[in-house]
């Protein structure tokens, strides 16, 4: 069995002085819950990178939300020593995000590696996002080591899933390693296989330095910590570095490796992975995918694959209590420091007041950010229905980009183009019908279907992004008893017959409820929304018509009848205190109403109308 690296040999693999042949850079491709963090924990322990007494579960997941949701949002690199046949090696594990929204960051993490562990739960088999990331790794020519995890589980079926993995990557089922991150069984073999199967990095040690940023994290005390892989050349402390996308130059205040706590080093040599601290305060100045070079002898050509972060999904965030607006602004300013893909600008809604229009990489990104705002900054927020980016060409040839339905142009529209995605869905074959039906109703076009094994199918659809940002994933899960998984990636734009549906209360448009939908779905959206609002808005002193309209054409109508009785008939002596307290409570409730024209709309109505759930029918029956 391979021992831990002894103190004498450690010198041979000290940072900046490790020969590339002794370096292995790898990542772990895994689905949420398939045990990546637990396996990583075990590796940290077995290699001695983390002392037993310092060990805590999911060591690498830094944010509470990550730990609670069992997902890794941001990656990080850890250097671990390992000895095979008397030779010490430095293993750099690059922890990749596990969600579809962060596929660009995944691609950069993969680009920093020569190999990947394909980690699959032996009781569940591969999931769509894992498959997508596997394909990405294979395209990048990474060496793939298939690993079945959780073999200690009674429900584990390693034979079945070894077969599936072997089919996918073209190896023999026996090549699949079988481990238990929980018990540690098989983990040493994984470490040995990393050394034997994954190629050492290759780069030109004499060339001008080129380091690829694969992660960038804001730290309150140290500013931005930038994680890099040195592709060519080397970097040393106190030299000046240049970010090639912007040309900005910074002093290198600290350079080092994480093992997993940060340790400053004498530099980073070719093929190595580590971190840089330059004193910048915003991750936007140190963007994932960018190339870092030396300011004195800079490289001429940046590394391939850099992309500006591009929000795909937009939503308005509004504080329920209007006086929280400054808190929300400050919170976004802080979160932005650590999130290069978060975009926002002030937005004013007649219905919801002051807030921000925010752009996200995807729905999870939105949810995670919203969660953090509510949890870390104690904010109560309303988020409007997510929207995508529409490009509109008018008859007169003018063009506009619409990320907010309320900005949809009026006048003669020649063409509207909406973003499309390539979606991959993995499902047990018994649910093929349900999945296809769902995709069909969401305007999907079938692109192909392959059996991964006798009872698991990969279905590929081309779908409008707008159709999957609302509740597609929830629907997919519920129609497949939770078994299906989804991955999607950008696939250009298509022209579509889209219209904006407005909702009007007593003739006044309520901007928060406007939506851009396909003409075929406009009627059902209008009926649904008008019906929801009729149930959610309390009766007023006058009749309130609710209308759904496309332009000036009314497509659905509901009426909230005027209230006729608003008096408690009984008022004995003993009721007076109770009655006064009820009056005070009602007046307090009135303060939480938003006035839309002359109509009082409770905050709850906005929240409920904008959520995908049906209003609680039981509660409705009571009132």
């Amino acid at each position, binding site marked *: 069995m391979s021992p831990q690296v002894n103190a004498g040999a450690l010198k041979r693999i000290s940072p900046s002085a490790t020969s590339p042949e002794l370096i292995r850079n790898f990542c772990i491709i895994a689905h949420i819950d398939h045990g990546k963090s637990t396996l990583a924990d075990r590796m940290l322990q077995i290699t001695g990178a983390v002392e037993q007494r310092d060990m805590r579960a999911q060591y690498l997941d830094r944010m509470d939300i990550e730990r609670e949701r069992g997902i890794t949002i941001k990656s990080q690199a850890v250097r671990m020593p390992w000895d095979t046949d008397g030779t010490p090696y430095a293993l750099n594990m690059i922890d990749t995000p596990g969600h579809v929204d962060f596929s660009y960051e995944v691609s950069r993490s993969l680009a920093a590696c020569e190999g990947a562990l394909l980690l699959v739960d032996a009781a569940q088999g591969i999931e769509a996002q894992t498959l997508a990331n596997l394909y990405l790794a294979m395209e990048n020519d990474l060496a793939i080591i298939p690993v079945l995890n959780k073999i200690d589980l009674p429900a584990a079926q390693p034979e079945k899933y070894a077969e599936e993995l072997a089919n996918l990557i073209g190896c023999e089922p026996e090549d699949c390693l079988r481990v238990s991150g929980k018990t540690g069984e098989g983990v040493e073999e994984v470490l040995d296989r990393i050394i034997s199967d994954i190629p050492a990095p290759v780069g030109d040690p004499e060339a001008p330095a080129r380091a690829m940023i694969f992660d960038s994290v804001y730290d309150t005390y140290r500013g931005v910590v930038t994680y890099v892989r040195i592709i060519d050349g080397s970097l040393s402390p106190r030299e000046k570095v240049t970010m090639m996308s912007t040309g900005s130059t910074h002093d290198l205040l600290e350079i080092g490796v994480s093992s997993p706590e940060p340790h400053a080093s004498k530099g980073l040599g070719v093929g190595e992975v580590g971190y840089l601290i330059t004193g910048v305060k915003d991750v936007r100045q140190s963007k994932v995918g960018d190339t870092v070079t030396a300011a004195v002898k800079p490289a001429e050509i940046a590394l391939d694959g850099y992309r500006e972060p591009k929000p795909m999904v937009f939503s308005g965030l509004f504080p329920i209590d209007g006086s929280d607006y400054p808190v929300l602004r400050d919170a976004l300013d802080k979160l932005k420091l650590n999130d290069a893909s978060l975009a926002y600008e002030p937005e004013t809604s007649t219905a919801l007041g002051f807030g921000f229009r925010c752009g996200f990489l995807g729905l999870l990104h939105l949810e995670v950010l919203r969660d953090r705002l509510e949890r870390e900054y104690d904010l109560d927020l309303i988020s409007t229905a997510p929207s995508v980016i529409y490009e509109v060409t008018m008859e007169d040839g003018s063009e506009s980009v619409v990320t907010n339905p309320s900005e949809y142009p009026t006048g003669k529209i020649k063409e509207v183009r909406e973003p499309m995605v390539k979606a991959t869905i993995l499902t047990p074959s018994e649910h093929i019908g349900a999945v296809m039906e769902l995709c069909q109703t969401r305007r999907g076009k079938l692109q192909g279907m392959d059996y991964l094994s006798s009872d698991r199918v990969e279905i590929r659809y081309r779908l409008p992004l707008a159709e999957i940002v609302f509740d597609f994933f929830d629907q997919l899960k519920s129609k497949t008893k939770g078994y299906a998984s989804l991955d999607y990636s950008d696939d250009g734009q298509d022209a579509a017959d889209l219209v904006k549906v407005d909702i009007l209360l007593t003739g006044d448009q309520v901007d928060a409820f406007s939506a851009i939908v396909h003409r075929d779905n406009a009627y059902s959206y209008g009926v649904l929304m008008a019906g929801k609002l009729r149930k959610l808005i309390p009766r007023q002193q006058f009749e309130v018509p609710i209308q759904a309209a496309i332009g000036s054409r009314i497509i659905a109508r509901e009426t909230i009848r005027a209230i*006729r*009785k608003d*008096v*408690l008939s009984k008022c004995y002596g*003993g009721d007076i*205190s109770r009655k006064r307290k009820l009056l005070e409570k*009602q*007046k307090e409730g009135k303060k939480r109403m938003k006035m839309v024209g002359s109509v009082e709309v409770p905050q709850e109505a906005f929240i409920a109308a904008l959520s995908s759930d049906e209003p609680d029918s039981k509660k409705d029956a*009571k009132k």
Partner: protein
Amino acid sequence: MPAQPTGETPPLDGSLPASAGEGAAERGLSLYVHVPYCRVRCGYCDFNTYTAEDLGPGASRDDYRANLARELDLSTRALAEVGAGDREVSTIFFGGGTPTMLAAEVLAGVMDDIRARFRLAPDVEVTTEANPDTLDPSYIATLAGAGFTRISLGMQSAVPHVLATLDRTHDPEKIPDVARWIKEAGLELSLDLIYGTPGESIDDWRRSLEVALSNDVDHISAYSLIVEPGTKMGAMVRRGELPMPDEDDLADKYEIADSAMEAAGLHWYEVSNWSTSDATRCDHNMAYWRNADWWGFGPGAHSHIGGVRFWNAKHPRAWSDRLLAGDSPAVGREVLDDSTREIERIMLAARIDSELSLDSLGSGSQRAISDFVKQGLLEAEPAAKGLFVPTLQGRLLADYMVRILTDYVN
């Protein structure tokens, strides 16, 4: 049963803050006597009442009068201490529960106990609530002899299936006889009605009104059924076994009631109360609504003396235990500040015909008043003369108007 309001804990000796006595001479004094017994508990009822004969040592029905006397003693002492004692009592009301579950002699005895401690006005109004089943001519005669002037009869409905849903056990056929006995004994007759019971049709309600008004009735209280949480009916509605009363149906029935009453010569004087004349109004309830002083005796009873509201322990056993120990049975109280008293004044007066003077409302309220007139909620002519008189439609939306008007209280 609703919980008592939250409030501070009053002193054990029952003493009142000095502020309670301020201006007492200008306020009337009323007494309320709560009799917490019933033969059956009705499914909709959230009043403080018990069906068991014996509720533990010192809390049986036989002990009731003696315990009440202890509270009467305590009240005279507490009122005298703050200079609010030396006043004529203008009204007394026995409510429940079913006061007439007690023998007529016991009620008469309680009247004696009251007279022994309080000075009653020569024209004092003395009312008891009564269940039609519990009355006969001799019972009524005993009450009349003891000084009772008024009986409020719990008729509720004339329709058997409605009474059954309400768990009322009396025979509706008996109402005309009982009503006649009351009138023959020289007492004023009030009937209590409930509308909006699940399953009650519009015709059912018309029928109840017709039967009620065919008697020589002086006064009618008509309350919409309120489904209270914690009652049997509340649970049935929650489980979906009974429908929640529909607000539009209640509004229809209110309008039907008002026009039937008017046709029979009864005029509204409070949102839920109609009388043949000013003289036949329920003065005791008017005292509540005008924020007069009243002392409530008995388990769970509420009192109001000069801006201090307090309330007794609810269970008869807890009430009697405290009295037997020489302590006050009050378990909570509120000392109202001026703006809260003003809010209560508006909240109560807005429900009464011609009670609220527009001049007494805060500055800035004129706009609201003119809106109400425009919306048809207030009578225009009285409003022009400075009086708040809600229209039929306005009576049904009184709480809405009160919410707006109380915004102008400083």
